[in-house]
């Protein structure tokens, strides 16, 4: 027990003084997720607002030929501005990106309307430009609506029910609840927590074998009158402490970031208060032992620090695999999934954020199976720490 504690406290002290470990445990991991998340959310908020509420400017050549159309467009939150001087100018402006879209109304527009000849307008846009494409779509939709309106009026004038033109009425109903919609976007956050947690212990895990070996401190350490099992346990638990700190920080930084995100504008109300932060911490806690022993195990097979870093970056991605597969197949939480570490934590976390009642059995299975896997890997690490090949 004393050996274990001696190793444990030495590793804590050693790594607290190591800037690289501290950066990855206390800054990189916890900050990466929330920053990334804020970025993605802001992007989707921008887009959402763009589509519905913001007004767009539409340069029009020949406004004077279609005053009614102009009023109609303005009623759809499209601001009419003066366009280039002529058609050539319009094409040029769209080509070089000065305008995303330009509407040209020829002189004879009014005349053709009056004569019930299809009246011609020209809409210049650049299909290769995705932003411009969005603006063009909006202008096109507005023109189409105007077209329908006129058609309806013409039919009415001739005593025909304009409804004849609408054999089908499509009404889209989105059944997702605000919390449910949040879960879709917040689904990725469980991975951020796992990522932060792994980052926190990465350097300690490497140090246990590859690091000690490269520094030349492994052989003297192994020649001491202690059992190797105690050495490795002390090291793995020290890694766990850093990982727990990393996890807690990333949960808290997420909590803070979410407070400042205008999520209501996206119709999302994630359930991520302090009680959920605490619950998520304890839910992910068993994963720490698994992560620490997995990283130690992988690092023990490598020849050098650099090689260990390379392989551990693969380990950082591994927990996403089950999450990814389930998201792609859109599977509902099933009891079998609770056996799979990382996936079970993800599914339970999503339920928590959706504010759905927790399934106690699911939580119990998740905790037990993750702990079991962790214990198994730790045992394998201890076994491997006894082999001669360890010395490299």
């Amino acid at each position, binding site marked *: 027990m004393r050996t274990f504690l*001696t190793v444990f406290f030495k590793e804590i002290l050693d790594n607290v*003084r190591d800037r690289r470990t501290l950066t990855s445990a206390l800054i990189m991991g916890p900050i990466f997720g929330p920053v990334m998340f804020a970025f993605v959310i802001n992007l989707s908020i921008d887009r959402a607002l763009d589509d519905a509420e913001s007004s767009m400017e539409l340069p029009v050549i020949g406004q004077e030929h279609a005053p009614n159309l102009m009023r109609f467009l303005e009623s759809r939150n499209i601001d009419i501005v003066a366009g280039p001087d002529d058609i050539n100018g319009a094409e040029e402006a769209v080509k070089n990106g000065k305008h995303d879209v330009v509407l040209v109304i020829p002189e004879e527009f009014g005349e053709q309307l009056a004569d019930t000849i299809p009246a011609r307008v020209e809409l210049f846009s650049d299909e290769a430009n995705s932003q411009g494409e969005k603006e063009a779509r909006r202008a096109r939709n507005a023109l189409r609506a105007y077209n329908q309106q006129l058609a309806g009026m013409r039919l009415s004038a001739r005593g025909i029910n304009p409804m004849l033109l609408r054999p089908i009425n499509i009404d889209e109903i989105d059944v997702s609840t605000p919390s449910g919609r949040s879960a879709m976007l917040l689904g990725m956050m469980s991975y951020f927590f796992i990522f932060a947690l792994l980052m926190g212990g990465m350097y300690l895990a490497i140090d246990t074998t590859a690091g000690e070996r490269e520094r*030349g401190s492994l052989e003297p350490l*192994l020649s*001491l*009158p202690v059992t190797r099992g105690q050495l490795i346990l002390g090291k793995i638990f020290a890694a766990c402490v850093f990982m727990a700190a990393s996890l807690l920080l990333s949960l808290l930084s997420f909590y803070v970031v979410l407070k400042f995100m205008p999520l209501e504008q996206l119709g999302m109300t994630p359930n991520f208060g302090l009680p959920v932060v605490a619950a998520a911490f304890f839910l992910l806690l068993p994963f720490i032992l698994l992560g620490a022993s997995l990283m130690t195990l992988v690092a023990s097979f490598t020849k050098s620090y650099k090689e260990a870093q390379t392989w551990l970056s693969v380990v950082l991605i591994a927990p996403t695999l089950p999450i990814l597969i389930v998201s792609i197949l859109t599977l509902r939480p099933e009891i079998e999934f609770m056996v799979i570490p990382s996936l079970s934590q993800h599914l339970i976390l999503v339920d928590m954020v959706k504010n759905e009642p927790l399934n106690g059995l699911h939580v119990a299975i998740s905790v037990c199976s993750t702990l079991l896997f962790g214990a198994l890997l730790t045992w394998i690490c201890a076994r491997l720490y006894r082999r*001669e090949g360890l010395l490299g």
Partner: protein
Amino acid sequence: MIKVDSIHKSFGKVQAVRGVSFDAPDGKITGLLGPNGAGKSTTLRILYTVLKPDRGSATIDGADVVTDSLAARQKIGALPHGAGLYPHLTARENVAYYANLCGIDKAEVGDRVSEIIRLLEIEEFADRRTKGFSQGQRTKVSLARALVHDPQNVILDEPTNGLDVMATRSLRRLILKLKDAGRCVLFSSHVMQEVAALCDDICIIANGQVAIDGSIDGIRERTGQEDLEEAFVSAIQMVGEE
């Protein structure tokens, strides 16, 4: 007292050690001499139990290095070749870490660490972090932590490698001190003069085998060479011819 009885060790197809036997008694300095790659380090690594022999056995004060390795480790202080320190810990913390791992009584750790630091003359830099220490400083601190639990048997693998003249001399003085205290000192080197200057007994190893062993005078006599270097060369050739 270290007894080595016909140990063998192979790494894949390479036979590093092929039946090495010798005794290193208490109160004497035994030198393991041999060219690079002769099997000196492998032999010592078996003795401080990080490697297991394929055949043969070795005991440290009667404790078998394979079947009773924990007890064997208790009785040795080892300075492996190129031993490294923890750069974020001070020299004192490095030594104290080993003192605690060796199970020295908690209340005595502080005193014991200070004592060994004084003995090895490293007070000057004892409370600095070891990052950036010179090779000589590193070797001294490594030695301090190997000796902190006051082991009866001391195993040093090429301890003077990379040391300057002054550092080598102070290390030599220390080894002599250990001898006077009745310790068993076993150290390896490929430097002739160093072994001649220090050792009571020499065991010359070449090609993973003991070419010749005994006192310096005995070796001179048996090889018929007055000059020790010549004796060394002819002993190695004897093995090579087999």
